[in-house]
């Protein structure tokens, strides 16, 4: 099985369903993610995006269905899953460098591999100067960059991001989105990016899944076939943005 660009399918989500008592939140969701794909998921507020991600990352069990990595049921102990949360998740007692290393340490990467990876990533995201500072000495955007770097550092099979830049101002957001794309292009990771910001989704993603209101299912799929770097005022960009907006509008 391959996607439209001929890449093989890495992640398969089959019949993902989640109920809380009588409340059906996720309703038989099916989709695949290709190896190295950048997939964005957008949906109206309260459509169950967080539940969706919690199921995918195996933080909470599913009611039915499952997520498969290379044909096997995903298991955080076996597969490299990484998650960037909306709120900062820096460990305050570790330096920036050791924070980025945390995921690799949990997964028992060898020492020399950790060192090499740290040097590469810290340079790439411009954290090399601040590597020995503690999180309370760096800015909020740097904290989020630490979390993103930590996630990319483990060479994840699937990297999930839950509105990672939702709390930052617009200028920083553009800057960090470019940085994210650079990381993704260099490290060739498979990324699943959840956001409610449509422009952001069109800016970063190769493909967008639009979720419906509860009970949530996939309402539409939009390919974003634009060259990079993308321009926010390119007519084609605007057209795709309008298309997604139409799909998502619930008013």
């Amino acid at each position, binding site marked *: 099985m391959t996607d439209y660009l001929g890449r093989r399918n890495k992640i398969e989500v089959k019949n993902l369903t989640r109920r809380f008592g009588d409340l059906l939140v996720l309703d038989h969701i099916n989709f695949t993610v290709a190896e190295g794909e950048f997939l964005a998921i957008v949906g109206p507020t309260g459509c169950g995006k967080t539940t969706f991600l919690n199921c995918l*990352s*195996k*933080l909470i069990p599913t009611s039915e269905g499952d997520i498969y990595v290379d044909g096997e049921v995903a*298991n*955080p*102990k*076996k*597969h*490299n*899953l*990484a*998650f960037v*949360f909306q*709120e900062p*998740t820096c*460990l*305050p*007692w*570790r*330096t920036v460098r050791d924070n980025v290393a*945390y*995921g690799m*340490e*949990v*997964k028992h990467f060898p020492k020399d591999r950790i060192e090499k990876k740290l040097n590469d990533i810290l340079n790439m995201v411009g954290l090399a*100067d*601040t590597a020995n*500072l*503690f*999180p*309370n*000495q760096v800015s909020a955007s740097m904290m989020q960059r630490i*979390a993103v770097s930590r996630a990319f550092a*483990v060479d994840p099979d699937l990297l*999930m991001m839950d509105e990672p830049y939702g709390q930052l101002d617009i200028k920083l957001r553009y800057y960090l989105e470019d940085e994210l794309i650079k990381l993704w292009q260099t490290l060739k990771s498979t990324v699943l990016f959840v956001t409610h910001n449509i422009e952001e989704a069109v800016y970063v993603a190769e493909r967008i899944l639009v979720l419906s209101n509860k009970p949530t299912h996939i309402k539409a799929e939009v390919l974003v076939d634009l060259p990079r770097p993308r321009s926010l005022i390119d007519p084609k960009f605007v057209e795709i943005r309008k298309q997604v907006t139409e799909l998502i509008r619930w008013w």
Partner: protein
Amino acid sequence: MAYESVKVEKPLSLILLPILSVFTFFSAWELIVDTGIVPSTMLAAPSAVIKLFLIKLTDPNPDGAILAAHAWTSGKEAFIGYLLSLAFGLPLGLLMGWFTVVRGLARPIFELIRPIPPIAWIPLTIFWFGIGIEGKVFIIWLGGVVPCVINAFVGVRMTNPTLIQMARTYGASDWQIFVQLCIPSALPMVFGALQIALVCCWVNLVGAELLAADQGLGYLISMGRRLALPDMVVLGMVCVGFVGAVIGYAIERLECRLLAGIRR
């Protein structure tokens, strides 16, 4: 780009005011005794205490030991009891905070024993250990272990749940989360426990020595009472306070060093 740490100077008022308050306190104390507002049979003036302090440095009479020997005995007992309470209480509290099995097993017994004041154990302790050092160490241990368990427990419970989720998505085991997240998160509370336990140990030490001892600062206080020497009582009290403050200060310095990243 250079990132330099900024040195913050202590305001002058925070240096001068403590000196002023200590000076005023001791002057007032000296005055109310010297002028006879409080008779010297009830309270000793600081000058009398200092005089006795200088005498007791070398003279073992009338209580049988020089001051250094009393302080050494007390310090030894308190230190052993304190260390044992940390060694037992902190791991127990930390484990209770994270592992349900430990919490389920240990909590009911802990809650039953906790309200019994350590002093109430003294009669049993004398049956078991006599009036030697073991009995006093046991009483001190009982006093210190309770705050250690409670603080370590609460510290682990206060671990940021998002951090735990983050670790889980990387596939961290329960033990990894406990060691790498819960214990460092609990450290500020654990350091609080070091201070509180020290006070509890030190307080119980004096209690234990008042009842069953032949040497120590608590014994010095009770001898002062028996011999009707208020200066000796106050000297014992001052030594207890002074040694406690010195150890407390040392722990605070250590805490600042170790928790550099956590302080905001």
